[in-house]
């Protein structure tokens, strides 16, 4: 085990895969000598050369569509959208091309493309640079969408994404770049679509993604002191969604809280809530609660933006509310 930051774990994953497979290359804005807008690709061009790691013009349609074209013709591109919000800019390329090219062309191709997209609050980045747009991709059949919350997950999921024969949108959280954690030495792969129970508990389940996983764990710690055992399930993505793990947890606890930074409407939390309501209604001892971002654009002010996403206290309150049904 080595302790490293989330950003460093992503960098390591990229380096290991560039090293392993000559078909892997990285392109994006500022990913070259500059090392990425957030320093995540630092040193990679220096080490692997301009052929393997290079900058592109500000052309998100090309970035993703070009990645699809390269993937169709035998390469394994890793493209970086500077902010996950720019998924909207390249939506046709992601939603219609990357996701569906294989299907609509009769399965004649595979699309081994990784789209890295830094999401989440970053301290005053504003409404178009702070979003968590994974919900936009919930209906993108053909696509995988993963969301690491820890350095170890960041490493293992990215390496699996690069090796996947399917297009994977890898939404990394900008606010977690500095998060340190233990990362296994050597080859570390995490299968895509497998949830991780970050903390076991018996009384209430919190399903949370990226930054909210950590707030859920903080809430669980506080409630544990009162004898309330919170289970924290990190689906580590939204497509595919590990409904088995979520159902098993809810069947155990009878109480479900779903939490992400994005607003609830159309989000993965709503999908989880609906799925559980469909498949485990009679296990529910309390109403499902979506503890999600406010249904507003994210304010620019770094003070105010915090009020646009759920706090630890919000989660604690939700747990208490769920437990009031006895």
């Amino acid at each position: 085990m080595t302790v490293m930051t989330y950003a460093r774990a992503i960098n390591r994953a990229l380096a290991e895969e560039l090293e392993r497979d000559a078909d892997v290359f990285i392109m994006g804005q500022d990913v070259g000598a500059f090392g990425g807008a957030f320093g995540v690709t630092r040193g990679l061009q220096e080490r692997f050369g301009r052929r393997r790691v290079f900058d592109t013009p500000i052309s998100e349609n090309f970035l993703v569509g070009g990645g699809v074209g390269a993937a169709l013709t035998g390469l394994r591109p890793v493209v970086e959208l500077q902010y996950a919000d720019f998924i909207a800019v390249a939506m046709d390329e992601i939603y219609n091309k990357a996701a569906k090219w294989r299907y609509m062309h009769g399965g004649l191709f595979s699309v081994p493309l990784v789209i890295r997209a830094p999401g989440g609050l970053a301290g005053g980045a504003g409404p178009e640079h702070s979003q968590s747009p994974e919900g936009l991709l919930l209906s993108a059949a053909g696509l995988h969408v993963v969301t690491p919350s820890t350095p170890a997950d960041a490493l293992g999921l990215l390496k699996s994404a690069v090796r996947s024969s399917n297009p994977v949108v890898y939404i990394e959280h900008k606010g977690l770049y500095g998060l340190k954690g233990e990362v296994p030495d050597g080859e570390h792969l995490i299968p895509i679509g497998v949830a991780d129970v970050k903390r076991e508990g018996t009384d209430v389940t919190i399903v949370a993604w990226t930054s909210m996983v950590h707030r859920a764990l903080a809430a669980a710690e506080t409630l544990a002191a009162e004898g309330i055992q919170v289970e924290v399930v990190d689906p580590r993505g939204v497509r595919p969604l590990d409904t088995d793990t979520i159902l098993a947890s809810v069947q155990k606890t009878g109480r479900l809280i779903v939490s992400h930074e994005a607003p609830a409407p159309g989000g993965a939390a709503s999908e989880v809530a609906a799925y559980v309501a469909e498949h485990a209604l009679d296990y529910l001892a309390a109403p499902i609660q979506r503890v999600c971002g406010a249904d507003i654009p994210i304010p620019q002010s770094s003070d105010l933006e915090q009020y646009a996403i759920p706090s630890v206290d919000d989660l604690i309150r939700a747990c208490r509310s769920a437990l009031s049904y006895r």
Partner: protein
Amino acid sequence: MHGLILPRLGQTMAEGLVTAWLVDEGSSYAAGTPLYEVETEKVTTLVEATLPGTLLKILVGADSIAVVGTLLAVAADPGEIAIPETTETFIREDNASRMRSIEPESWPSEDHTAPTSSALETPTSVRAMPRTRKLAHDSGIELDALLGTGTNGLVLESQVANLVTASASAGVEFGDRPVASGGSGTAVMAPPEAPRPTRSPGPQRAPLATGVQQRERRLLGPIARRMSQVVTSSWSQVPQFTQFITVDATAWQSRREALRSQLGVDIGYTDMILDAVLKAAQEVPEANSSFDDEALVLWRDVNISIAVDSPAGLVVPVLRTAQDFTLEGRARRTRELVDRAKSGTLTLDDVTAGTITVSNLGMYGIEGGVPLVTAPQATIVFLGAVREVVVPVDGGIGIRKEVSVAVSFDHRAIDGATGARFTAALGRHLEMMKMAPDHAG
């Protein structure tokens, strides 16, 4: 080959703590041999072999909790030579057959278009969470009959759970309601058991001091957990009050000796106390009762719960239909119950259906105490030690023996005056022991 299955040792038993195996793997035994000891919520019991055999493999070891019906061990039939493979096959097949047998028979089919009569989908005016509805449905409870005590009239899961427990111990089908006794010739239901707090999904531990070294952390066994649940619910749900009286016990010794010589049976203070409680309960039947949220149910029988300290913790065997026995009959039965309580061989029938409780810690020298009503029983009597006190006698000083008696009542249904009538009657009957023995019965 046959399996040893954890039996249901009483209607409400759901699980048991296997405390010890008395036969080792590989040992042979005859039918009737005690195989293992199991502790349930109420008792610790030795389970005997129903078939002769050789114990092959223990699946649920000592200090493990298992639900009723669990395959605890596998045994070979006499003369059978078992190899590990066949044992494993037996276990696998046993598990598989259990999986099949738990499949519900009349659960809504997979055909989503077909209308079902599931309680889960019934949009009644009653509000309840789905899991509560499922519990009610599975237990045959009509939610309509319940007045929700949660927010905005929500029927709580604990309400249904309490009904399930109460019904199970009373042996009644839901839909009936407990009725007050009175009509001659009508069957009178057995008293309900104490409410069972909702089975919480997990332990809800109170925060402990940090930085303090623990000597040991003792997990509560089923008996202790049961006690914990009962007193918690009594304390939080039953408003109660306590009355005190001091009785003159000077004549108890001579009364005891007189009874002994007269009846040829060893009569103890406990028997004399039970006698007084019985008489007081018959005189003031409101004290031999239970409150069911609507009515005070007066029980026909006086079933006296006797608190006994046993090695496994507090157990409360019940002297059933105390009114139907003579003093010496009661004494014999009481001794038997206490012996079994101390040796851990009470059956579940021995500990259910009490209607009034007596607790006596006199043997520990305790002078007095405030007992906690054991819901749903309305009354509990506590007696302290017999002690000598100095009293004024004819202008001089005399010594007399006294006992402090405390009686707690469920105040939801018993008022102070009614309680006082019982307490006074009890005092009177305790003091009347100085008079000549009668033939109780």
